[in-house]
């Protein structure tokens, strides 16, 4: 068992950390206050190859492995959650769903412009009335000749106003007994007639990001844009979440790290009762907890990433990693604010932004309560993984780096 990261992974970590520190960190507080996404974020991430990091080269990606996706997520969220959200939806939900469930023709046609960042991708699953209860979604897809007509609304969709394409799950078969049957997934061109989008403002956190809604009124989608088979939509959506959720886990790990570093720096410089507050044991206790949680979160997401590399089903491991890291980041950010005292309550320091950002991840990409139910299912044996018709392909260097 080798716990060391390869020199390749270390170089990825350093490059992404440098990129985020130089390109985003200097102005992130300002964009967060404005509740707007800086317009140069997506082009810069695309140029650096981040958007297609783990997609095979022949499909327009950079050919790196799934652990690299995790490391990039961690280092991006170290600076701000909004950066990692881009990877979660563009790479995790959109690119990897195409990679896992797309036919050869679909991968050749749809992946390259998205993986290269020429087009921005997203994932549209949740609706105003259906989040955790995903099977209850109401957006419909009605067959009309060679097309499907989509009607409905998606909500809480990251990059909704920025994305060009989105993986969208709909209900295409209304006669099924069980609610989760009859769902079908499409790749939708968001510039199609009948699509309207809008931003959601007033969010507690991830304010420098872009979250919004997508409404579809009689949107025509060609049948060749159907991903997987009709009726497979629920399985496809759940496996999309295994990938998005993994980046959330890795990202939250970066947030724990950021809270830790901010707390250590402040504890060394702030003095009370005649000495730096790092000398006070209750402060030490808070920092020690963050330090430990960072390591645990790291190990959990790296294991999930390794399993993806190996082609092993990782729903349980990803669930654990996401739940642990997001709770840990919420706690770490709270304690970071506490360590900063009154100054933690002001946006002069980044820790209040860390706290506001951390709350989102406990809710989205499968609430932590849902994660508990998933894990209980595995623990009690009531949930067993059945092989999927299409599994996320195991990482193979030769295949990923092949030009054709």
């Amino acid at each position, binding site marked *: 068992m080798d716990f060391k990261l*390869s*020199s*390749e992974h270390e*170089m*990825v970590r*350093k*490059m992404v950390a*440098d*990129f985020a520190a130089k390109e985003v960190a200097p102005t992130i507080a300002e964009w967060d206050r404005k509740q707007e996404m800086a317009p140069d974020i997506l082009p810069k991430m695309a140029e*650096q*190859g981040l958007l297609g*990091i783990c997609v095979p080269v022949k499909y327009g990606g*950079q*050919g*790196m492995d799934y652990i690299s996706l995790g490391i990039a997520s961690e280092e991006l969220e170290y600076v701000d959650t909004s950066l990692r959200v881009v990877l979660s939806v563009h790479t995790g939900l959109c690119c990897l769903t195409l990679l896992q469930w797309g036919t050869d023709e679909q991968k050749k046609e749809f992946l390259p412009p998205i993986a290269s960042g020429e087009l921005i991708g997203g994932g549209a699953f949740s609706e105003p009335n259906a989040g955790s209860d995903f099977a209850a979604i109401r957006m419909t897809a009605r067959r009309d000749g060679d097309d499907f007509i989509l009607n409905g609304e998606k909500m809480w969709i990251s990059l909704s106003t920025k994305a060009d394409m989105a993986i969208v799950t709909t209900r295409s078969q209304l006669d099924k007994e069980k609610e989760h049957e009859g769902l079908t997934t499409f790749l939708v061109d968001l510039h199609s007639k009948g699509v309207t989008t809008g931003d959601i403002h007033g969010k507690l956190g991830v304010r420098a990001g872009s979250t919004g809604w997508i409404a579809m009124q009689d949107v025509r989608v060609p049948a060749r844009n159907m991903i997987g088979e009709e009726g497979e939509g629920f399985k496809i959506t759940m496996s999309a979440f295994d990938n998005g959720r993994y980046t959330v886990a890795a990202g939250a790990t970066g947030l724990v790290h950021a809270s830790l570093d901010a707390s250590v720096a402040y504890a060394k410089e702030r003095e009370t009762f005649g000495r730096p507050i790092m000398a006070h044991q209750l402060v030490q206790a808070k920092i020690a907890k963050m330090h430990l949680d960072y390591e645990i979160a790291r190990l959990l997401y790296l294991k999930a990433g390794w399993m993806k590399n190996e082609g092993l089903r990782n729903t349980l491991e990803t669930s654990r990693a996401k739940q642990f890291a997001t709770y840990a980041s919420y706690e770490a950010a709270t304690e970071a604010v506490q360590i900063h005292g009154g100054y933690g309550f002001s946006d002069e320091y980044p820790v209040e932004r860390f706290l506001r950002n951390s709350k989102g991840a406990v809710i989205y990409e499968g609430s932590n309560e849902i994660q508990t139910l998933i894990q209980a299912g595995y623990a009690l044996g009531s949930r067993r993984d059945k092989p999927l018709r299409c599994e996320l392909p195991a990482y193979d260097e030769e295949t990923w*780096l092949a030009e054709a």
Partner: protein
Amino acid sequence: MNIVVCVKQTVDTAATISVEQGTVSWGDTPLVLNPWDEFAVEEGLRLREAHGGKVTALTVGPESATEALRSALAMGADAAVRVDDSSLEGADSLVVSAVLAAALEKMGDVDLALFGREAVDSNSGVLQAQVARRLGWASLPLVAAITAIDGDGRAIEVERMLGEGRQRVKATLPAALSVVKEINEPRYASFMGIRKASRVDVPVWTSAELSMDQVDPGVSWLAPEAAADVEVACEFIDVDDVGEAAHALVQRLREEKVL
């Protein structure tokens, strides 16, 4: 164009330095590619993009210095060479310049040797000039812009950054240049570069293999001592009128027996 960038692996300037019993320590902060060298690597890459050719990263150092070479490769350098320095005890720039000059001669047909303006740990800033001198090449330190270069005509024109302004200089190739930060914005490593960098087997030369005479260092480092911790108290002279403030300051300096 055959371009060689001489790089060094140094301490990270963000590291906390301490001195324990005459030994300098930076804890477990990883060593980095000398920040000034990044500008040199970037310039080499831009020249290759404009004029074709090859960029090789060259270093004199221990096995760990291979990481500095990998950083250059990850940015896009084509190749790298390390000259092992284990036999070069207490090497200063006088010694290292001899090694680099010999290595550049061994490589042969080098048009341009690029350097960062100085290493952040030794700060001598003279290595480039010493290498140029040893090789009989044109020496162009503190270059802020390469305005023209002609491989066939063997000519180069640069702008040097001086305190009083920019100086335009024409020289012949081959030349050794050191570059300042105004020259460019170093690129980040690319994923392709990272993959290449982690796979490449970097050739290692020993100084014995290079044809060079024995060179003794001109500088020797004495045992470093940690600077004593000084208690600093700051007193503000809170007087609006400048003349009165000056009087008050002089008074205080006399009271403290500084004047």
